[in-house]
């Protein structure tokens, strides 16, 4: 990049853009090479009392929502949604709002460190490195190892870093980078895309257009909480409910506990775990019969009476649902979450998709279709399933991996303990983490070369699903980095140059921006997008200004219903691992998700259904509690075949008496003062059982519950006296 775009040129472009879009974006700190200057020398785009707004992408989850950050005098003040980004249309979730608590978190990693693996960080421990040395380390790690023994483990977000690493590994013949995230695991993404591949012909994330549906059957899909793209789906839900003045969409949730999503359903059906697929088939069969004509093969085999007994859903209920479906113009069924996290998850997903085929909503408004590919993407790619992680870990243990780069993921915390990732790490000679926060994995590696926080760094991110448009969401620094951190992309680029040879050839980029722009070139001149630009500089400027580039029109590859209905779907009974009187249902905490625990305001947010703050709880039906003599705030030990975990009980009226549930997101042993030693992690008790698609059957376990005799009062936002009554037995 010889001719560097100066800030002045940029502002010209910006002003042009400003006329066309509401987002006022200077490219302040974004002026390529970030310098920190005293406020006495304030850059001309910051005036006292005036805010500057920067469009960027939210990195709190992989949904790629667009953000506009309000900054004032070099400080990020408020995160607001980017109104023009099709994924979230100006809306944000709680985690997006709290992203600033990540940026200004007191526990950020401030410098590159070496040789930790356990011992504490800090200058006094003499473990601080300078960046040249750090980059040398990376270069050596790349050069001195057999490429096949170099591994990259990355977060779920399909971003520019992932592209860069893919290029690198492809060029040097190293195994492709592995993407993983606990969210993906609890969403059973692999199962979904496998089912899509089997029935719809493409391994894409199916897109469920609930916005235009009038009856929604959700089989354990928590699309209002964390599932796939919560903001987008919440918007869809709102449209479904009140978008059409003539009719109010009807929403039925099948789930063994009343989740936040189920709480919004018109009908919540506490279904026996693992029978979602059967119920879907049964409903399908009844619908087919109600519609008359021949019942498609997919539903032929199922025996309704049998389903009724197995699922515990009364026949009348089924019939009323069928009635709703038959009456509806555009019904849609969504498989997800706990329904797929079963031994029979894949067939369940297929059954539900087949149901959609039956009601013939493929590619129609309010129906199912495939999520579009992102602008600069040509093949669907999904994060690794738990099965694949197991293989990966096996490879680590067998010493097949000499150097492991970890970025954007915290497998030690996110993977079930039983997978033994922590142990596997010890058998990897060199582990290099690019973590921004001192999470469990980072502290267990040899080096931490901290990346900028998302709001301090460049980038782009593909939107995998959640919108009908093809979206590439752009990111730019909104503040200059607070600490001595460095962009991982830059680190890899410079390391590659240092390593020279094929490495240098693989990554011939001057810096991160150059690399990003190289990935955007294929969009120059595209006329059907959010903006048109003649050449890369203008395009890059607009790209930052708009917060990305996206197609204007919806484009959804339509699968064929015939193939879906043609093949027989049989949902065999789910097997439950281990013994014990309870089915164990872990779910992702709606407010914390997998990485929110270190943000104090997310901790302070109450769980929507139980209103518990700052802690982990075990949901148990009061009746069950009475039988076992367990009261609120009694600490119980949950014992599974794989392990045990302790947490206080919340007697939750809206959960099946034979089910206990536990939120995922707390129980950190590191990860900063707000997260460390707080709550418990249900992943500790998850056993290694997979469904046909290789996803973890996390909801397919039986567990025992033991009283510990201890009490730990849960902090609740609700007043127990008012919500659950105050009459004392005396």
């Amino acid at each position, binding site marked *: 990049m010889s001719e560097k775009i100066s800030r002045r040129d940029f502002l010209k472009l910006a002003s042009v853009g400003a006329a066309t879009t509401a987002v006022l974006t200077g490219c302040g700190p974004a002026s390529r090479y970030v310098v920190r200057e005293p406020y006495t020398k304030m850059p001309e785009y910051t005036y006292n*009392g005036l805010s500057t707004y920067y469009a960027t992408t939210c990195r709190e989850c992989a949904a790629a929502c667009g953000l506009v950050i309000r900054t*004032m005098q070099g*400080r*990020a*003040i*408020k995160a*607001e*949604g980017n109104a023009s980004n099709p994924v*979230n249309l*100006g*809306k*944000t*979730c*709680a*985690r997006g*709002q*709290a992203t*600033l*608590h990540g940026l*200004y978190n*007191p526990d950020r990693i401030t410098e590159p460190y070496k040789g930790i693996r356990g011992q504490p960080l800090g200058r006094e421990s003499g473990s601080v490195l300078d960046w040249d040395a750090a980059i040398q380390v990376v270069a050596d790690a790349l050069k001195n190892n057999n490429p096949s023994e170099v591994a990259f483990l990355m977060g779920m977000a399909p971003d520019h870093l992932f592209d860069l690493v893919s290029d690198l590994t492809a060029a040097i013949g190293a195994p492709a980078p592995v993407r993983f995230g606990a969210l993906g695991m609890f969403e059973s993404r692999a199962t979904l895309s496998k089912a899509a591949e089997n029935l719809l012909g493409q391994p894409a994330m199916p897109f469920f257009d609930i916005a235009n549906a009038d009856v929604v059957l959700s089989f354990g899909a928590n699309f*209002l909480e964390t599932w796939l793209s*919560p*903001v987008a789906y*919440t918007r869809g*839900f*709102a449209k479904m*409910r*009140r978008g059409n003045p003539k009719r*109010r969409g009807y929403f039925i949730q099948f789930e063994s506990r*009343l989740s*936040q*999503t189920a*709480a*919004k359903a018109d009908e919540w059906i*506490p279904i026996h775990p693992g029978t979602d697929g059967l119920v879907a088939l049964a409903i399908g069969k009844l619908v087919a019969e109600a519609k008359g004509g021949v019942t498609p093969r997919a539903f032929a085999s199922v025996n309704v009476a049998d389903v009724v007994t197995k699922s515990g859903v009364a026949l009348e209920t089924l019939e009323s649902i069928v009635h709703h479906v038959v009456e509806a113009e555009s019904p849609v069924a969504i498989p997800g979450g706990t329904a797929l996290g079963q031994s029979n998850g894949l067939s369940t997903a297929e059954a539900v998709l087949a149901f959609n085929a039956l009601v013939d909503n493929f590619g129609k408004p309010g129906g199912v279709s495939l999520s579009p590919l992102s602008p600069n993407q040509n093949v669907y790619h999904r994060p690794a399933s738990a099965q694949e992680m197991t293989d990966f870990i096996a490879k680590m243990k067998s010493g097949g991996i000499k150097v492991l780069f970890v970025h954007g993921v915290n497998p030690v915390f996110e993977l079930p303990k039983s997978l033994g990732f922590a142990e596997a790490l010890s058998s990897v000679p060199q582990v290099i983490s690019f973590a921004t926060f001192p999470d469990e994995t980072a502290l267990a590696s040899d080096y931490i070369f901290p990346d900028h926080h998302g709001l301090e760094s460049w980038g782009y991110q593909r939107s995998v699903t959640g919108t009908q448009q093809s979206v590439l969401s752009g990111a730019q620094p909104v503040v200059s980095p*607070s600490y001595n951190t460095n962009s991982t992309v830059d680190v890899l680029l410079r390391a590659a140059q240092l390593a020279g040879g094929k490495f240098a050839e693989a990554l011939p980029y001057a810096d991160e921006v150059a690399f990003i722009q190289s990935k955007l070139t294929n969009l120059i001149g595209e006329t059907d997008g959010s903006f048109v630009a003649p050449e890369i500089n203008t395009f890059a400027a607009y790209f930052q200004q708009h917060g990305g580039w996206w197609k204007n029109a919806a484009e959804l590859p339509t699968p064929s219903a015939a193939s879906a209905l043609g093949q027989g779907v049989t949902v065999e009974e789910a097997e439950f691992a281990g013994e014990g009187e309870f089915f164990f249902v872990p779910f992702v905490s*709606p407010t914390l998700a997998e990485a929110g625990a270190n943000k*104090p*305001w*997310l*901790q*302070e947010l*109450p769980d*929507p*259904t139980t*209103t518990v*703050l*700052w*802690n982990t709880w075990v949901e148990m039906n*009061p009746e069950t509690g009475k039988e076992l003599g367990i009261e609120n705030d009694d600490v119980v030990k949950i014992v599974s075949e794989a392990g045990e975990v302790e947490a206080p009980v919340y007697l939750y*009226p*809206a959960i099946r008496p034979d089910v206990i549930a536990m939120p995922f997101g707390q129980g950190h042993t590191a990860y900063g*003062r707000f997260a460390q030693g*707080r709550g418990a992690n249900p992943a500790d008790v998850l056993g290694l059982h997979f469904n046909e698609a290789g996803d973890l059957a996390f909801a397919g376990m039986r567990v025992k519950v033991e009283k510990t005799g201890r009490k730990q009062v849960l902090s*609740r*936002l609700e007043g127990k006296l*008012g*919500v*659950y009554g105050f009459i004392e037995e005396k």
Partner: protein
Amino acid sequence: MATELEQAGFTNRSEEELGGRWGMVVDQDLCTGCQACVAACSMENNVPFVGEEDAGYGRAMHWIRIERLWESTEYPEVKMTPFQPTMCQQCHNAPCEPVCPVYASVHSDSQDLNLQVYNRCIGTRYCGNNCPYQVRAFNWYDYTDARIRPELTTLQNQLNPDVTVRRRGIMEKCTFCIQRIHKAEDKAKSEGREVEDGEFTTACAQACPASAITFGRIDDPKSEVSRAATSSRGKHLLEELGTLPRVTYLAGGA
């Protein structure tokens, strides 16, 4: 007499006829209880977090809280009441106002809002006591003082300079993001016009993914909020008290 009767709720007249300038509508049928509004509000208004123990004791400082009760707790006929985001209702006849001995909670003529003047407050907590909606939050400690809570030193970079940071012993509450109202009004004034509907909105309404919260001018019959407020589903909290809240709730259900 007629007006008293109307104020007591014997009226079919819509809010704007009874006055008011800024108003809010919350559609409980849409609210998914996702807490985005709570987070947004806290980020915008420098609301401090109080930590596990205090929050559990009832000292959480949320300016907006999402309530949910149970219609029935008998499994399987369990029924949860629709999520109800509860913030200051900006009553026209606010019970919290006359009880303050030092005019710390006064009524704004021009905006018909319920003001809380932090630096006037001496902490008698009568207003909090007298608020039927229990939406006032009291600073039980110096929650915002980094000398007492070192973890705030970096987090304070994020404080919104348009909003006062409150010290201990002071009552605070939702202000309808009055700093945004002022910004918009000043802008409109400088351009010699009235504030337009949708020109700006409160932090909670801006964030809400389900667009369950609508904010705007209820004295403008054409505005989105007044149309929503006059919907047949509309109701006020504790209407019988005749406090004339400026927040309308749209009931859930069909």
